[in-house]
Each structure stands twice: as structure tokens, then as C-alpha cells.
């Protein structure tokens, strides 16, 4: 691990000031992703701002009937919150399908959104990877790509976004609230947060390096049947091959977002509109312009079959 200086922030103001210490400074929250990557020298910050003590650990009702979730609320606390369990079940389910009990106790809401890909070539510093080392090539394109993305990809990078939580957040139309070092605040939807790889796969979100996620807003509950279906290589403690977050109303209309198939949680309004026409119509729309590899083209079939199961379950 490269050496770094360390500062503990007691409030958001201190955090966004301290992050200006260096261009390579980073926030550290639950540490479950950043520290892992620092050990491998994939991430090399020279200054860390510890935000894990910030007073952003509450979940409060908003005037609109939704919820404001502090960025430092742990994945366990979020999944177990009575209102999340009752009104946003898909979010509880997605969180509980991720990682392990130990990791969920540390992982935070903000950090979960910003966790980096699980592409094996990104993790192996001996391999070419445009995301880790821009311009070095992509080892995955001709390599082991079974887990990687099939849609939204580019010739530079086919990495998938690994978060379960973010897929549920996308289907719930969640928004992130941020503040930067100049004190500027902004609000962005999950669909705005992530950028597609194009030929700059090392850029993953629209966040500035000095921008701190302070909270996540959930709009008022939309009812319906909430389902999170994750398909993985073992029953627990594994990342998704594909996952579906769905909210389906009694009349069969609704919305769905998919995980494991794209560089970001994947949802299209046009696909939502086709839900009553069945799984194939929806998946055809979601997979428009898909560029799967020989090894991961099975995900397209799997997506359709999983959605069929989800739709069936929503009726049952």
C-alpha cells in the first residue's frame, strides 16, 4: 500500500475542506472497497479523509412522504429500517442479497454507489486495463468476460457495475444530494450519477473529486409488489451474474432495473412501458445494441428467463 496522510472529519465542512489537501485525496467511509483496492495499489490516494464519523447516519421522513437517508447509514441499518422494509422492500431485499453480514455492517449508502467494478483484469495489476491504466488496453475483451457487461459497453471497457443496492435505488427513482469544497450543493438522479465508459472508462460518475454525497432521497412510496431477484454462481456471498429490481402493480404495469449487465444499473422507460407485453418485449428493449462476448451472451437469455420468473412471482 502506498503511504498517505490521514484526517478524521467531524462534520461535512471539515470533510470537503480536507479533501482539497491534494489532487489525489479521497474520502473513505466503510473502507470495504477503497482499502481493498489500495492494498492492491489499484487506488493510490496520498491523503484520506475519514468520513465514517460524520453525523450523516439517520433516516428521516421528508415532507413529500419519502425518506432522506444519510450517506453514512450502513447497509445493515438501511436494510433493517422499518420504513424501508415496509414501503421500499425492493431496497431491503437488494441490500440483503449483497456481500456478507460483516461487510454490510461497515458498507455505507454513499460508498456502495461508488464501489468499483469486479472485472478480474481491473483487479490484476499485471493485466491491461483501460479503467485502471487509461490507454493500456482491455484484457477482458479477449479474456474471461463471463461476469462482465453486455450492454452500454464500449470497445475500451465492458466492466459491469457490481452494486445490488444501486439497482434498487434506480428502480425507486432515488436521488443523491451532494456538497463540494466551494459549498455548492446539487441533487442528481441515480441515472445521472453514472457515466458510460465510451473511451474514458476510468471516469465512472459525474461527481467531482471534491464532492461529497451527503444523503439519498427516496420519493414517496409507489406501492406495488417489490421483488429483487439475484442470479449468482453460489447461493450467498457472491456478486450478481444478473439481478432484477422490480416494482409491479396489480394491473401488471410497473418498472424494472437490471444489474450485472451494464456499467450502471440498467433501466429504460420504454422498457418499463412494455411490462404488460411480457418478459421478451422488455428484455429486447433493454438489450437494444447489446454487444455481448462469446462468454457472456448467456446473460441475455438469462435476463429474459429471470424476468419471466419475476413477473410470475408478482402475480402469485
Amino acid at each position: 500500500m502506498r503511504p498517505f496522510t490521514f484526517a478524521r472529519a467531524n462534520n461535512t465542512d471539515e470533510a470537503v475542506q480536507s479533501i482539497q489537501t491534494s489532487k489525489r485525496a479521497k474520502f473513505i467511509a466503510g473502507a470495504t472497497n477503497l482499502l481493498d483496492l489500495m492494498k492492491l495499489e489499484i487506488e493510490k490516494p496520498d491523503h484520506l479523509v475519514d468520513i465514517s464519523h460524520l453525523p450523516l447516519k439517520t433516516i428521516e421522513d421528508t415532507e413529500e412522504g419519502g425518506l432522506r437517508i444519510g450517506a453514512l447509514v450502513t447497509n445493515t441499518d438501511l436494510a433493517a429500517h422499518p420504513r424501508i422494509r415496509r414501503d421500499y422492500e425492493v431496497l431491503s431485499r437488494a441490500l440483503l442479497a449483497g456481500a456478507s453480514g460483516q461487510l454490510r455492517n461497515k458498507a455505507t449508502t454513499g460508498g456502495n454507489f461508488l464501489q468499483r467494478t469486479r472485472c478480474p483484469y481491473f483487479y490484476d495489476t499485471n493485466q491491461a486495463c483501460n479503467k485502471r491504466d487509461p490507454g493500456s488496453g482491455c484484457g477482458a475483451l479477449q479474456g474471461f468476460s463471463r461476469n462482465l457487461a453486455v450492454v452500454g459497453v464500449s470497445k475500451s471497457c465492458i466492466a459491469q457495475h457490481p452494486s445490488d443496492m444501486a439497482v434498487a435505488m434506480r428502480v425507486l427513482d432515488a436521488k443523491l444530494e451532494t456538497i463540494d469544497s466551494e459549498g455548492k450543493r446539487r441533487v442528481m438522479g441515480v441515472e445521472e450519477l453514472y457515466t458510460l465508459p465510451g473511451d474514458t472508462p476510468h471516469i465512472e460518475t459525474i461527481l467531482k473529486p471534491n464532492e461529497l454525497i451527503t444523503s439519498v432521497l427516496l420519493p414517496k412510496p409507489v406501492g406495488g409488489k417489490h421483488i429483487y431477484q439475484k442470479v449468482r454462481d453460489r447461493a450467498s456471498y457472491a456478486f450478481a451474474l444478473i439481478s432484477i429490481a422490480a416494482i409491479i402493480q396489480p394491473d401488471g404495469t410497473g418498472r424494472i432495473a437490471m444489474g450485472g449487465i451494464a456499467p450502471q444499473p440498467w433501466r429504460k422507460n420504454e422498457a418499463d412501458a412494455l411490462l404488460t407485453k411480457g418478459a421478451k418485449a422488455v428484455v429486447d428493449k433493454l438489450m437494444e445494441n447489446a454487444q455481448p462476448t462469446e462468454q457472456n451472451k448467456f446473460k441475455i437469455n438469462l435476463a429474459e428467463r429471470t424476468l419471466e420468473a419475476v413477473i410470475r412471482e408478482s402475480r402469485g
Partner: protein
Amino acid sequence: MRFFKNINQSRRTFLLTSATASALFSFVKIAKATSMKAPKTHVMNTSEVAMTVNGQKQNLTLDTRTTLLDALREHLHLTGTKKGCDHGQCGACTVLVNGRRVNSCLSLALQHQGDEIQTIEGLGTPDNMHPMQTAFVKHDGYQCGYCTPGQICSAVATLKEIDEGIPSHVTPDLNGKPQLTNMELRERMSGNICRCGAYSNIAEAITEVAGGKS
């Protein structure tokens, strides 16, 4: 198999190229090196942290890079907590932080200012074992024992999590009280890998402590 071949080939080509390149350009490299600043890897930053470990106050001055796991093992010599993968993938390093189980390998010690840490040494001693330790012995909940401290810490926390009503992936009704079934135990303990495969005995030990409800 095609992929293996390709990778091997390109790796060999790469090695050859880089060997030639370094032979040719070593002169240039040396010239460059002398003009470079001292490599940053020799810098060590230290910082202080105060935490309570197994009921004792500890003030530590640590290299900022020290994980909670290394602070426990290398600085406080509490070697009961084990390092398996060092990447959050095995659970051998599980300890309790403010009553919650975490992977101590994926946490910086400096982040634990003011925290209460409990390790396997703090749960019980050979003369005064925690009921979970006794149950692991009774049910042979281990073979080599390497994963065991992590399993036991995780198991103690798991029962507490069920008691507090925290749901899991296999809890059928999110709004009901989670039950201590074998399915629940297996899911909740999935963050602790046992290379010896002592799982069924581990489950029996935990079930006994929980009051045999499964």
C-alpha cells in the same frame, strides 16, 4: 483453451519485448532515475488513535496504513484474530466493533477512534469460556481451527442480529421477526468460509447456544 494460449503467447511476447527494451534503454533509465525525486514509498506517515480493546483503553501511534487487523495482531499481540485473505472474502478476521461484527482486514485502525473492539480473547478464556466457545468444542465445530475465532465472533453477533430483528436474504417476511432456522444460520454465516468444511458442526454449535430452536 484458446484463451489460455493467447494469454501465454502475448505474455511471452511482452516479457521478451520488455527485456529487450530494458537492455536497450537501461542507460536512459539510470540517467532519468538520478534526476527523479526520492521515491515516495519511503515516506511513512503516523497518526494516533485511542480505542478500547476487550475492555482495556489503548492509545496507539500507527503507520496510517495499519488495518484494524494488523493493529490487533502486530501491535497489541492479540493473535487470536486471524488473517486469511486480507480482502474481505473469508471472515477469519471477524471482530466485534461496538457490538457489530466486521472484517477487521478491511478497516483502517485510525478509523476506530473511540470504538469498543471485542476479539476472541475478549469473549472468553480457556478457563472461562464463552458459551459459544464451549459449544464449538462440544460439537467439534472446527478441524484446523484457523477460521474458528472468526466463526465464533460472527456466530455471537449473528444471534444478536436475529434477536434485534435484523432480516436476512432468506427471511420470508421482512416485516415479521426473523426465526432461527438452519437456512437463516447458513445465510447469515456465509461470510465465514471454512476451508476444512466444518459447517454442519458449526451450525449445530450455534443452534445449541441459541436454545435449539432450529
